[in-house]
């Protein structure tokens, strides 16, 4: 018994290092220059050619490097070279292949050529795929059966190597987008834009109809006519027509380089059975490498020792300078040695661990909002005194996202271009009070939308003169939602006075398709029903699972439905394309899920989409927005605002929702973190003493009861 006691005591002493008992991290990490973040769901993919979600980009954005990136400090969002020496040279050709001037009319441009000049001297992270023996042969490719006996865990690959980034790696990576083995989600878009992509995809699918995970498809044996290597550091990409948005794609991980050696390494027999895939062990030239990959528990990024090519930006606005954002100007990146992502599925433990100092950043859930945020007299949010005392600060930003409710334009009641249907949509748009929605359900974290273009994107206009005149009006210079009487008037004009069909007298019944689940689902639906009830319109909710919902949208069987759009890139084309007729979901499977079609709008879109950001383009966008406001295929909804809390030991950072590689700009003070964690987490020991006192007392009482009973039985 005594031995057991000492064993437990020893365990306690070894486990509870220092004066803190609740530190969830190993003692060896104490005081290290490590950033602690959490993830709620494991990312589905980390292969840059497949990954297409925010959580995956948070990881691979730090590992891989596409040719371009966004300037960290400059607004509006501006592309700058990442692995390139300078921005791509763009040349336009006519149908005969002759060069055109830069400002040539779009109709005259048959092809665009993007020439990319890489910066020499960029090297990949140390990786077993690059390891070579003294004869120059790859150590781990091809692997023999006997070699597999020693390879069970990723750590068993003890030899690592590196190689210089070359243009061939980008060419190979672009070819991978067409491979049937990759299943790249943007293959459709790229096939429409990159010359020869469609043909390459067809050829690969023909040659490899059932590619196994372990089959190596050597893409060097295939030609992609629109992409070619000019020299070791130069490549050219040829596009159909003019497609200025292609530059934005060049800043996304889809265009990150993949060397042939890496592809060959991962596609060997036995690799996928050991979970050694590019999808889980990405390779790149970025500031970090993935050193621990357990998506069910922890993912650790460590500094890439071969990363030397980037420094903190030297220029920024005066506001940036005032916020201390230029303090690190010119210093080599990254500042942090390790980034630990821990699985935290539930918000309660995540929030409590943030308060204990074990996470460096935290989002704010609705449950914790009042504990975290107080609103000032002018309506400006700030952290509560309790959090301020801990040194926690708040940063806010508007996301390049629009959350909206759409009308299916193919629906016989709310759809179509008739005056009746338009008036009905306009009336409903006024009645659904998004200001109220943002207050009730989002704790004020949203901006009511006047158009589909979010703030920060070219074409966004927040001047009072440019409000949505159908839904809003100006009262004493302030933008206000039109009164419900205006909506009732429009409803009557639509032929539904007081919510009844003027011809049949039948009540107007509409259907609301959504995927709401969870505790707030009923509240969302009830709120929406109450909004339309103000017009005496009966709204019936048709909640379904995600598959059925998407199915209904694809088949055009929805009537009014809730949806959202997250920008791929900060260009208005990405948002305005959601209303372009040929993109209709029903007819072409495109992203226009309202199936909106207006020839005037389409003509303006075709004119606008390939223009540079000039005042002329801005004017066209305004015209397009006016058409949308009048036609009202959407209730524009709101642009979500992101509130992020950060600990006192994190240096100043600038919110950058469109970019995914910004961790390299963060610095932290590990000594201050250690000091604060110790101060905040001293264990409360009196309950232990109380338990230690109560247990013997309970035992004594039991013993006395037993004695009394025994005596009673004996007598």
């Amino acid at each position: 018994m005594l031995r057991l006691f000492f064993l437990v005591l020893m365990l306690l002493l070894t486990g509870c290092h220092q004066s803190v008992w609740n530190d969830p991290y190993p003692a060896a990490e104490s005081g290290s220059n490590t950033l602690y973040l959490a993830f709620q769901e494991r990312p589905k993919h980390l292969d840059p050619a497949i990954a297409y979600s925010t959580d995956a980009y948070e990881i691979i954005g730090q590992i891989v490097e596409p040719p371009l990136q966004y300037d960290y400090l400059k607004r509006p969002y501006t592309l700058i070279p990442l692995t390139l020496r300078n921005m791509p040279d763009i040349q336009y050709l006519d149908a005969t292949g002759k060069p055109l001037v830069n400002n040539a009319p779009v109709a005259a441009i048959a092809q665009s050529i993007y020439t990319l000049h890489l910066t020499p001297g960029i090297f990949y992270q140390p990786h077993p795929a690059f390891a070579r023996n003294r004869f120059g042969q790859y150590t781990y490719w091809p692997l023999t059966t006997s070699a597999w006996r020693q390879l069970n865990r990723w750590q068993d690959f003890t030899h690592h190597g590196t190689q210089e980034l070359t243009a061939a790696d980008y060419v190979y990576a672009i070819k991978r987008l067409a491979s049937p083995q990759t299943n790249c989600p943007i293959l459709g878009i790229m096939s429409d834009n990159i010359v020869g992509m469609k043909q390459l995809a067809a050829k690969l699918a023909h040659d490899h109809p059932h590619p196994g995970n372990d089959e190596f498809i050597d893409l060097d044996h295939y030609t992609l006519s629109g992409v070619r290597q000019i020299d070791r550091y130069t490549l050219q990409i040829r596009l159909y027509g003019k497609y200025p948005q292609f530059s934005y794609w060049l800043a996304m991980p889809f265009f990150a380089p993949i060397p042939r050696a890496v592809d060959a390494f991962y596609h060997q027999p036995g690799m996928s059975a050991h979970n050694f895939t590019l999808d889980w062990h990405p390779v790149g030239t970025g500031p970090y490498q993935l050193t621990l990959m357990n998506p069910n528990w922890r993912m650790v990024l460590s500094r890439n020792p071969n990363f030397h090519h980037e420094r903190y930006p030297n220029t920024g606005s005066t506001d940036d300078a005032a916020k201390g954002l230029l303090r690190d100007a010119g210093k080599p990146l990254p500042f942090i040695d390790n980034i630990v992502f821990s699985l935290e599925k539930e918000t309660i433990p995540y929030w409590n661990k943030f308060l204990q100092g074990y996470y460096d950043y935290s989002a704010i859930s609705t449950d914790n909002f009042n504990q975290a945020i107080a609103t000032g007299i002018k309506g400006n949010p700030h952290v509560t005194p309790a959090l301020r005392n801990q040194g926690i600060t708040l940063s806010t930003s508007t996301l390049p996202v629009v959350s909206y409710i759409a009308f299916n334009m193919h629906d016989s009641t709310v759809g179509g271009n008739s005056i009746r249907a338009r008036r009905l949509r306009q009336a409903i748009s006024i009645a659904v009070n998004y200001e109220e929605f943002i207050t009730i359900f989002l704790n004020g974290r949203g901006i009511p939308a006047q158009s589909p273009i979010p703030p920060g994107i070219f074409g966004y206009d927040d001047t009072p003169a440019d409000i949505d005149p159908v839904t809003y009006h100006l009262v004493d210079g302030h933008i206000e939602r039109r009164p419900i009487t205006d909506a009732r008037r429009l409803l009557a004009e639509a032929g539904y006075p007081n919510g009844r069909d003027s011809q049949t007298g039948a009540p107007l019944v509409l259907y609301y398709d959504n995927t709401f689940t969870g505790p707030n689902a009923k509240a969302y639906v009830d709120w929406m029903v109450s909004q339309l009830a103000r017009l005496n319109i009966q709204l019936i909710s048709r909640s379904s699972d995600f598959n059925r919902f998407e199915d209904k949208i694809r088949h055009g069987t929805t009537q009014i439905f809730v949806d959202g759009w997250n920008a791929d890139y900060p260009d208005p084309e990405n948002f305005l394309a959601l209303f372009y007729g040929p993109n209709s979901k029903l007819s072409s499977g495109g992203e226009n899920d309202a199936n909106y079609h207006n020839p005037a709008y389409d003509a303006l879109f075709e004119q606008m989409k390939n223009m540079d950001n000039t005042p002329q383009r801005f004017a066209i966008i305004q015209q397009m927005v006016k058409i949308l406001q009048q036609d009202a295929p959407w209730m524009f909804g709101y642009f979500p605002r992101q509130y992020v809390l950060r600990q006192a030991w994190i240096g100043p950072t600038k919110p950058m929702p469109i970019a995914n590689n910004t961790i390299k700009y963060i610095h932290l003070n590990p000594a201050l973190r250690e000091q604060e964690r110790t101060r905040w987490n001293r264990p409360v020991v009196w309950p232990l003493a109380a338990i230690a006192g109560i247990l013997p007392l309970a035992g004594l009482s039991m013993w006395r009861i037993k004695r009394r009973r025994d005596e009673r039985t004996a007598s």
Partner: protein
Amino acid sequence: MIRYLLRRLLYAIPILLGVNLLTFCLFFMVNTPDDIARMHLGIKHVNHAAILNWEHSHGYDLPLFYNRHETHWQALTDTLFVHKSLSMFTLHFGLSDDGRDIAREIRQRAGPSLSIALPAFIIGLGTNISLALMLVWMRASLADRVGVIIAVALMSVSGLFYIIGGQFVIAHLWRWVPISGFVPGVDSWRFVLLPIAISVVAGIGNGMRWYRSIFLEEIGKDYVRTARAKGLDESRILFRHVLKNGMIPILTGAVTVLPLLFMGSLLTESFFGIPGLGSYVVDAIQSQDFAVVRAMVFIGSALYLIGLWLTDIAYGWVDPRVRLS
């Protein structure tokens, strides 16, 4: 006995086949191969060709049960059901739809699940039996009545409350252990202590009341009266005789669930950040990963059958009057 057990083993085959068929039907009634492909490819910019390509490369382009393009047996064997579901009987679980080796994943996750489930089960069993015996020993007294009231109160509280309350008081207010997290190896005790304690406490109400009723039934039997008449003291009767005879229903319940401990607990593992098997199936259902769903349902049902099989053996072991034939 061996013949009996072998017969039970053979019975397991049609049961597993039925479970497999049911899982397959339920899954594909809700999700089509198109849905699965869309879930994996994402919903933005994905065209029909990409969906067909994904289905083709993942083997979801086959008909469900009957392949009219094939002849003879191949019309039945070259189908999604045979390729994706019946292959489980070879115990080859293959890759999940996101490309991870399922067997390896299960091996990796089983350890953390067991590190909580097994101690919680053993400690819980011991605690519940001890408390139940104590109540029986003090039966018909004020302490017994208070004990039963407490047990009913404990039963009435949601499991989620124990977890959130336990985390708040022990880990947040008193700061004795980490709120959540996990590390492999010896240091894992700091992370499993609280979930184990909470699991034990959350199970006390149910377990104590059930075991109490078993022991109360035993204590009214003739052999107890005989023991008392012989002059044995109450504690000796309880621990030597009542406990032994009460073990039959206890073991029956315990042995059945023993293999299923391996499957972990969704709620506990989610709140404590334990990288176990508890959430594997739920995550797979949410991400429409049929490869994982079929494997986990197959393993779960096989383990349940093993549990029943072990119960049969345990019957004979605990009660010599029972003969398996």
